[in-house]
């Protein structure tokens, strides 16, 4: 239930009504006041004041002053007349309700219209601003263009001038040359000695300014040519300078290298060197050199070369136990297994080697090639020709120019076709 504020006081003049409403301690803001043409309401919960006015007022121009614990309304009448009372006295409930609703609706409409109008003006303003800026920018651009044009024309004119002078100079010089060639040599030489100093100086002087003085140049050039021929040194004694180029770990220039991958590969190799999977108890009775995977690898290679495949496998096994990250060990062991016809083991070892030979870089091309070929051979000997062919093709991709691999790949293809036809 709202608390009605009834203690208002008012007075009027012909054109305005002054209404004072004490607020009894409540604070009011503009939002609490609702006013339309014939209806006035102040609602500060729980307080409420409303008045259905005697006659319509001009609500846009009317003001409300909030302060000092009360609100002071200045309402401008639509029609200047003296009111009998502030509110319509005999208003029954329905009429009041009706009026209230109307008032609200009207207020809403007005609000809507106002926003519309504001929007439109805003848009127009924006458009105007835009056009103004565009005009300014156009003007600026034009100004710059004009400047450039002027420069261009000025420069073109200068160029033409210079060029014409050049042409004249050339013509003059050629005439001069012809004239002087007709003269005899001796007077030329005499004059050379006298005039040399004189004509040299004006020539150098004029080189500082824009153009050459044609006459001086004409005669001087012939003289200077003679002089120059006398003064030119003999051709240099032939010699060769040997050059070396900056070495790189990978012999490719920055633009060609795939640095990231190469770094990875180098890193991996370095790591691999450092690993020692040691099983100390078993290895205690081995000699120092037998604990070195590289030495063991060399031993294995030697035994392989001599045909002692089992011995080579043993050497590689021990090396792997010491350091299982060196791809070459697996690679060589695969070769041994191939010779020993341990085909499955050969495949295993080649695969392990290939695994360790990632990322694929030019440095480990050779090793990868061998791994593919060995695995391919093992597959073929197991009659798994398709897998074998796959490996051979991978090998071909690494080294397309290898004839042997190409021939072998062909043979396998034909074998496959042969078996397919017969089955």
């Amino acid at each position, binding site marked *: 239930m709202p608390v009605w504020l009834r203690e208002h006081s008012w007075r009027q003049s012909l054109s305005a009504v002054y209404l004072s409403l004490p607020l009894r301690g409540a604070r009011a803001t503009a939002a609490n006041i609702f006013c339309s043409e014939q209806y006035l309401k102040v609602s500060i919960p729980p307080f409420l004041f409303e008045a259905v006015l005697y006659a319509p007022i001009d609500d846009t121009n009317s003001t409300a002053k909030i302060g000092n614990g009360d609100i002071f309304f200045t309402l401008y009448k639509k029609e200047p007349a003296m009111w009998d009372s502030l509110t319509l006295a005999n208003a029954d409930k329905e009429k009041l309700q009706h009026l209230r609703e109307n008032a609200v609706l009207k207020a809403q409409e007005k609000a809507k219209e106002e926003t519309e109008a504001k929007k439109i003006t805003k848009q127009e303003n924006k458009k105007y601003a835009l056009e103004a800026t565009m005009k300014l920018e156009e003007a600026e651009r034009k100004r710059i263009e004009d*400047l*450039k044009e002027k*420069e*261009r024309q000025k*420069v*073109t004119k200068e*160029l*033409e001038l*210079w*060029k014409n002078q*050049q*042409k004249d100079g*050339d013509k003059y010089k050629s005439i001069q040359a012809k004239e002087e060639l007709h003269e005899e040599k001796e007077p030329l030489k005499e004059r050379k000695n006298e005039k040399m100093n004189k004509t040299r100086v004006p020539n150098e002087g004029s080189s500082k300014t824009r153009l050459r003085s044609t006459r001086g140049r004409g005669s001087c*050039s012939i003289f*200077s*040519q003679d002089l*120059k021929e006398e003064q*030119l*040194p*003999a*051709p*240099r*004694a*032939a*010699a*060769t*300078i*040997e*050059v*070396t*180029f*900056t070495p*790189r770990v990978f*012999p490719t*220039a*920055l*633009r060609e290298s795939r640095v990231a991958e190469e770094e990875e590969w180098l890193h991996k190799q370095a790591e691999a060197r450092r690993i020692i999977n040691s099983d100390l108890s078993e290895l205690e009775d081995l000699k120092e050199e037998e604990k070195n995977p590289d030495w063991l690898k060399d031993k294995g290679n030697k035994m392989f070369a001599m045909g002692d495949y089992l011995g080579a496998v043993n050497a590689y096994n021990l090396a792997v136990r010491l350091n299982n990250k060196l791809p070459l060990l697996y690679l060589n062991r695969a070769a041994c297994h191939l010779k020993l016809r341990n085909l499955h083991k050969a495949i295993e070892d080649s695969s392990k080697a290939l695994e360790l030979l990632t990322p694929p870089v030019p440095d480990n091309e050779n090793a990868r090639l061998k791994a593919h070929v060995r695995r391919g051979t093992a597959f073929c000997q197991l009659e798994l020709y398709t897998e074998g062919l796959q490996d051979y093709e991978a090998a071909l991709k690494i080294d397309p120019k290898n004839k042997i691999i190409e021939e072998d790949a062909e043979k396998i293809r034909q074998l496959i076709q042969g078996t397919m036809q017969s089955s």
Partner: protein
Amino acid sequence: MSAVLGPERPQVVSHVQQALSYTVFDCKWVPRSARLMCLGSAARGTGVIQLYELHGARLEVLREIEKPKPIKCGTFGATSLQQRYLATGDFDGNLNIWNLEAPEIPVYSVKGHKEIINSIDGVGGLGIGEGAPEIVTGSRDGTVKVWDPRQNDTPVANMEPAQGESKRDCWTVAFGNAYNQEERVVCAGYDNGDIKLFDLKTMSLRWETNIKNGVCSVEFDRKDINMNKLVATSLEGKFHVFDMRTQHPTKGFASVSEKAQKSTIWQVRHLPQNRDIFMTSGGSGSLHLWKYEYPAQRSKKDSEGSEMGVAGSLSLLQNVTLSTQPISSLDWSPDKKGLCVCGAFDQTVRVLIVTKLNKI
């Protein structure tokens, strides 16, 4: 990097643009004239030399010469002002010197290299510098050879990879330090980033360094003075300016480098009238005009007491994008300050004028 005020900056004005029917690899001004030379390769695989003259706002073709092999580079550097013979290197490794009045038979010809001659430079001609006129060529076969037009068939100096050494393409060569009759130096840039400085007087390697990316172009600021500055441009938009006055025994020459354009910097050319201004041309079709400022002291002593150079600083005066294709060749006119020609891979040659260079 200091900035020059807006309206006072040099402007690059495009004066003439000419579409060509062949790929232009090199363009050069004919000295003492308003004529220019374009060298390149026609679609049918033959070489083209075209001579143009500047007429107002157009380029007029004066002469067109066709040769059996495409031509990669050319120079007027080793001829006298009267003769104005053009020395060219072609795709087959031949070095030829042509008299443009009678271009059917070359004045000098030698099959200098086994592969394409990438770059050529000449010194001793045009009234610049002293000493014998010489031509240097750098080729994909990794060798750099110096030729004297008076000596047939054999080079007077040959810089080749040592026996058994793998070769790297030589992409650019330049002469320098030719301030008297004996002194001369050749600088060569290779595709693996090596820059080597050969002293022709002592026939030895004077200095080498590696700037990691392939070197597209090297140029001394002047050929005919005691070597002062060397600019080397490379792939990936970087270029280095070396101060060549002070050589430290281990550290070599001091340098400042700048990464300007996102793509390869194809060429660098110093303004003939002011040796501290140079223009670089890039793979994105843009030209940048730079000015080098010297440091307060060009050399200082290091901890052991040996002299060490101090590099200065660079400021960008102007940049402009002319094309979408790389601008592969650039040449300033030695006669008119600010006039330059550039040739791009979009088969156009453009004549540009750079203004306000007097105010720098």
